[in-house]
């Protein structure tokens, strides 16, 4: 005989389900508000002029003067171009090098593998400030100071470890038999990587690539330190150094307009690749 289980009426359970659904909705709304409000506030502020900024009306004023000024500014266009160059090259380089390293670390057996992987992880935990002055010296020695490429060089130090790390775990999850089949078919390591693994690594490449891109796009400290003139600045630095009409005016509106503008490409990228990102981030979590 089964033990007696205390059971309530069907209406009670129906009611509980409704309560739970409403509660979930409330919590979701709260979290969304917390995450999205700062960005919304930036949009609102970017359309306000002068003294309007100081009354906290939540509705945008829909005055796009700041945006128009921004796009007429040649320096801003240059810095966007610089940022694109830096972010794209950083992403491409770290994906290329990261894939090669990941294949070696994930698939080939050599004795130093473990210690090498740990070193890679160690590098990525250093705070930027620690590396800053040393990196500055390196960049001077290479004659890269005040050049856009100095930033690509500097960003690789934090994008490469995590791309390598993520791609390594992705490659490890690959069915061993698939690779053995390729070996039986006469493939070299290079051909296994390019013909078998790479085509199947799309999601992982997209998600790690996107993260690298965002990191490079938003980075401020290195970009501020390693560049000097307006012609070699990236967007975050250009925004940070925006000056007002007089030294007593803080150009809050233009800053907000610029910030919103430079976030848009990221949002477009993420939305475009979102399916692949989810696939890439959950790869390895569940065996499929």
């Amino acid at each position, binding site marked *: 005989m089964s033990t007696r289980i205390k059971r309530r009426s069907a209406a009670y359970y129906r009611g509980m389900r409704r309560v739970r659904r409403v509660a979930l909705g409330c919590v979701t709304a709260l979290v969304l508000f917390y995450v999205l409000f700062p960005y919304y506030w930036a949009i609102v502020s970017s359309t306000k002029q002068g003294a309007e900024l100081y009354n906290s009306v939540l509705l945008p004023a829909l005055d796009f003067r700041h945006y128009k000024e921004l796009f007429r500014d040649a320096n801003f266009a240059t810095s966007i171009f610089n940022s694109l160059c830096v972010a794209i090259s950083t992403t491409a380089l770290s994906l290329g090098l990261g894939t090669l390293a990941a294949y070696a670390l994930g698939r080939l057996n050599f004795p130093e593998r473990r210690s090498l992987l740990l070193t890679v992880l160690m590098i990525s935990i250093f705070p930027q400030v620690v590396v800053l002055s040393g990196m500055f010296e390196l960049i001077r020695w290479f004659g890269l100071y005040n050049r856009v490429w100095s930033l690509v060089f500097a960003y690789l130090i934090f994008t490469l470890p995590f791309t390598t790390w993520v791609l390594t775990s992705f490659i490890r999850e690959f*069915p061993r*038999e*698939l690779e*053995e*089949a*390729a*070996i*039986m*078919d*006469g*493939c070299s390591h290079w*051909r296994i990587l390019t013909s*078998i693994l790479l*085509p*199947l690594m799309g999601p992982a490449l997209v998600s790690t690539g996107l993260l690298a891109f965002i990191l490079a796009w938003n980075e401020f400290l290195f970009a501020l330190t390693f560049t000097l003139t307006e012609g070699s600045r990236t967007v975050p630095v250009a925004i940070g150094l925006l000056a007002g009409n007089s030294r007593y005016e803080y150009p809050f509106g233009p800053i907000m307009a610029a910030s919103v503008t430079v976030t848009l490409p990221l949002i477009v990228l993420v939305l475009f690749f979102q399916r692949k990102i989810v696939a890439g981030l959950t790869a390895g979590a569940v065996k499929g």
Partner: protein
Amino acid sequence: MASVALRSVSKSFGHVPVITDVNLEIADGELVVFVGPSGCGKSTLLRLIAGLVPVGVGDVVIDDEVVTDIPASKRGIAFVFQSYALYPHMTIARNIGFALETLGLSRQEIDAKVAEVAATLKIDHLLSRRPRELSGGQRQRVAIGRALVRQPEVFLFDEPLSNLDSDLRMEMRMEIAKLHANLAATMIYVTHDQVEAMTLADRIVVLNKGCIEQIGTPQQLYHAPQNRFVAGFIGSPRMNFMSVSANSSGAECRVQGPGNLSLDVTLSGPGSPAEIGIRPEALSITTQGQGKVTGTLERLEDLGHEHLAYVRIAPDVAWSVRLPNALGKISTGTSVGLDWRLEDLFLFGKDGRRLDHSLSHERSAAANGGRV
């Protein structure tokens, strides 16, 4: 076509020995099946032959040529994987032709060969699809096609049918047997499925803990296992065993054990039996008092084409009995006797080796007469 030989091959992963001193000769055109419990090293042995796992000690010889250090793709071998290992992002045609592509053959040559192989395997209508759109049986055919297209001298199969349902498994088993008959190629086949081993094999290699326990035709293994392990491994339901004590005077030996067992046997070699074994199909159920052992009928299973009875002889000994017909009016819980012909009795020494007795030769003769 080629013969395959392993000469004192050993392999260990780290400090764990996986294969210990394996010697094996496989003749040209032979189909040899490796069986053994999981973890016995049968898949590793196959990968050693293929060259996917480097040999630790010893040599792999294909067609009288030592290939130990020759890379996998240059050994003239094709491998069919358990998971099929089809490239998910390629069409079926490209999957089959990929090895030829790597070899650098021209497009027309590849297409012609792929089409030919696809036609023989009846998968020509699937060539433009991708692996995920195929059923398990179709994927299996593609995997075989991928092996066939390279016209290898040796085929290696690693549990190729274990992912299929039983109907398809039987069908593909026939296909592989047909393939072997048509190509007359040397094939090595790893499985844990007894039926596959017994029906496909010219010879079976029984592996246990990285060592070969016995090599022989299916009939030899069934009728004349060399030791307790092989006796227990081949046959389903497995052989019944019972520990016994023996009093011997010369070759004459009295074997005694639970269930009032008392048997006189004449040993035809040295050693003293520590265990007896009888196959379920060699047993018959009699009324209590008759037969060689008594026990309690515990359970009856009606499988339609046969009946299985479980008889408990001692608290830790229960034997299964395979009966062609229903038992009639004997109900569970009653005491019954078990009887068998003396030539069906297996005797095992303390070390697990089988001991010959005067009547066991008849059985061995049957084994050798059944197969050349």
